[in-house]
């Protein structure tokens, strides 16, 4: 049994509850338990690209320093903080590398952290849960714990931007990733390739420029359907929201009839590994995935 210090981030407590609960359940089954770190704050969701803005680097550094303390009370825990959200993953990784390489940035940030009697010692690594599954748990073990192979599920693995970009944050090859595909395959699903696997969904433009997100989502979903997918698997709560909610709104406008349900990779794992269906919180989804799962006799 290995325990990991787990940083949830804001969205997993609000509209991606199914992502968190399914991840916690499967992590226990796989003896790589995710234990929520105490007293965490929002990472800021996007890291600043301005070299002169230290303010926006404080929140991620505080998370790293608190997680470093959390690791000490865990069982067999490596010096790693694990995230589920790909935006948290990218923000924490980029800031971590940035301050590790630049003492002139870390010093004033640590001066700020002193108020809370904290200090970041540059001793942590950031890992996405997918990396833990691939590198520490291994697909073999996952395959062995599958009780109900996802037969009939034709999944398009959509990476979005933040799992693969920028270089400091990528968890796999940025032009030809395989981690989501390998995972879905070990769960018994069929893999559907679409060239738009990392075509940006429009991200935060959903707030004030919805038309951009609509066009992106339309392209991504259409390409997935043309290639024969009946579901999409993602790792980012914002990609999930955009793909899910915008398909539904396009259906209301009469633009689309056939909708692809969106799954977090951990939800697929929970189904295949025989966890109770209610932990997936499918009621939060705009497109109900239960219809497809019932048709395929997976629930």
């Amino acid at each position, binding site marked *: 049994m290995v325990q990991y210090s787990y940083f949830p*981030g*804001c*969205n997993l407590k*609000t*509209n*991606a509850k199914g992502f968190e609960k399914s991840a916690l359940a499967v992590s226990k089954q796989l003896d790589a338990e995710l234990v929520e770190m105490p007293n965490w704050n*929002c990472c*800021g*969701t*996007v890291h*600043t*690209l*301005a*070299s*002169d*803005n230290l303010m*926006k680097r404080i929140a991620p550094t505080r998370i790293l320093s608190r997680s470093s303390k959390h690791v000490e009370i865990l069982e067999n825990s490596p010096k790693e903080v694990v995230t589920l*959200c790909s*935006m948290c993953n990218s923000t924490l990784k980029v800031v971590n590398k940035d301050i590790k390489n630049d003492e002139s940035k870390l010093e004033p940030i640590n001066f700020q952290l002193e108020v809370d009697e904290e200090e970041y010692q540059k001793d942590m690594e950031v890992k996405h849960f997918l990396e833990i599954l691939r590198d520490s748990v291994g697909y073999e073990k996952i395959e062995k714990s599958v009780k109900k192979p996802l037969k009939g599920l034709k999944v398009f693995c959509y990476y979005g*931007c933040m799992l*693969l*970009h*920028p*270089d400091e944050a*990528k968890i796999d090859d*940025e032009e030809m990733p395989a981690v989501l595909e390998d995972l879905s395959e070990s769960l018994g699903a069929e893999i559907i390739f679409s060239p738009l696997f*990392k*075509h*940006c969904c*429009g*991200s*935060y*433009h*959903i*707030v*004030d*420029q919805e038309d*951009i997100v609509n066009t*992106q989502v339309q392209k991504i979903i259409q390409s997935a359907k043309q290639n024969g997918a009946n579901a999409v698997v993602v790792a980012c*709560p*914002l990609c999930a*929201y955009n793909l899910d909610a915008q398909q539904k709104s396009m259906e209301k406008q009469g633009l689309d009839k056939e909708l692809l349900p969106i799954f977090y990779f951990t939800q697929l794992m929970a189904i295949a590994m025989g966890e109770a269906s209610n932990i997936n919180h499918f009621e939060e989804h705009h497109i109900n995935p239960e219809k497809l799962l019932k048709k395929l006799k997976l629930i």
Partner: protein
Amino acid sequence: MSYGYIKIGSEEKAFIAKVEEISGQNVYSCYQCGKCSAGCAFSYKMDKTVNQFIHLIQLGQKERTLDANTHWICASCFTCTVRCPREIDVAALMEAVREISLRENPEKVRIADLPKESLEKLPNIALVSNFRKKTG
């Protein structure tokens, strides 16, 4: 792009220096191959494509650069950054121009003007990232 006189004086040089300072990039590394624009998921929405935008920065054309919508359409997906053959962090150039604009006019998005229902329905990850990128 329309033709016209282009002056490169002290104002222009100051703008180039500011972009380079904030982004940490050398704008003259760009040799205008256009790979960034070709791979950009949002090129069709931009009034200046990414490489045209960088060209404007190279020439120090502050007003024209800030008038373009390119940096506001960019969603920092980093596709250009990871593909640039000159290893320029193109997304950081976009951020630098956004920063210059926001340090003068801090509200690209006015939070008070957003409809209440969208504030309630949108996930916090969308709101936080939007406000971090579009308010100063």
